């Protein structure tokens, strides 16, 4: 259509678990910010009207039959993306924390990298503040992951991520489903499969719904679980070579084949 070389075909994946109050507005906002990109809401075993609200707002909806956690929801999204021949998937949370206007910034970087993280406190204004054990966990995580990635990653646990290139087929098969797996372990898997990771700074807005956990005991538990997740990720074995090669071999499902 346009003379411009089209950028990689991308899809936006929104994992949502019982977020009927926020998901509609988030989807509308994404569609306004990036009209060319399809929005795929993964309703993660929601018991409220999340799926209906998302559909009414114009999103494609995957309805998981029961709750699988963010990791499972995202893997379903990645599998859909690979099956339908997309080159990239961008995760945007349903609670409105991530600004969809920054999606093109992430996608632009995907030309050179396999994963682009929208980091919450890179440089500039950091309105997103954390402290205590949760902060220590984040510091340790970013130190270790930066070393692995051979580049500075300040916010490894950000949910705002663009996945493309070699990482997408790997994630479609191996995206971790355990606690914190969707952030920490997924990065380790990608790095060990030879993917290139980078970050861009992103603004985080206050959530439209839900409350962040800042209780000290919860933060301590978070610290331990994050450390354990990292340790597990580092010693686990992954067979990712097959998926990296597979991308060329397997033809994707084309939309509208019946026509």
């Amino acid at each position: 259509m346009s003379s411009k070389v089209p950028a990689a075909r991308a899809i936006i994946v929104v994992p949502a678990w019982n977020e009927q109050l926020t998901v509609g507005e988030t989807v509308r906002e994404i569609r306004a910010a990036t009209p060319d990109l399809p929005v795929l809401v993964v309703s993660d075993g929601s018991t409220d009207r999340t799926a209906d609200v998302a559909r009414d707002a114009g999103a494609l909806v995957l309805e998981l039959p029961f709750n699988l956690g963010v990791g499972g929801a995202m893997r379903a999204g990645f599998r859909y993306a690979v099956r339908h021949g997309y080159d990239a998937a961008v995760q945007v949370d349903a609670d409105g924390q991530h600004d969809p206007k920054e999606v093109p910034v992430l996608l632009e970087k995907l030309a050179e990298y396999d994963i682009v993280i929208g980091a919450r406190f890179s440089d500039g204004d950091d309105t997103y503040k954390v402290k205590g054990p949760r902060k220590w966990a984040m510091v340790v995580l970013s130190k270790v992951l930066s070393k692995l990635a051979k580049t500075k990653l300040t916010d490894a646990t950000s949910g705002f991520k663009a996945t493309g290139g070699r990482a997408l087929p790997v994630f479609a098969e191996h995206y971790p489903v355990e606690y914190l797996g969707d952030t920490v372990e997924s990065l380790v898997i990608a790095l060990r499969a030879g993917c290139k990771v980078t970050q861009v700074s992103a603004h985080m807005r206050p959530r439209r719904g839900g409350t962040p956990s800042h209780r000290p005991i919860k933060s301590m538990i978070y610290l331990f679980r994050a450390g354990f997740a990292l340790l597990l990720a580092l010693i686990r074995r992954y067979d990712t070579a097959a998926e990296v090669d597979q991308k060329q071999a397997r033809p994707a499902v084309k939309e509208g084949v019946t026509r």
Partner: protein
Amino acid sequence: MSNTYLVALVGSILVLAGIVELLRRRQLGEKYAVLWLVVGILLLIFTVFPGLLTGIASGLGVAVPTNLMFFVGILFLVGVVLHLSWEVSRLENETRKLAEDQAILRLEVEQLQRDKQENVTD
């Protein structure tokens, strides 16, 4: 014949019968069948010949024969529990994949149906 001997004998026969019955009703997978049959038969053998356990224990240098039994029993049970944990993890993973694919297929079917309807109305 002492009373305890009789109780032990009836107990082990009941365990063995239970295992065989579960197998017969196809409630126990083939891969566990052999394992539990061996356990049941060993149990019966040691009940019928209590001297066997004493002999093995003294041969291994274990002073109290029942301690050998407890040791082997606990080791065996830990192994079984570990195996079951592994099995559950594997099953959970398979269920997850099925759930994900089911959701994807459902969306694809809905899209195909919509396409079809649009073609008809055109």
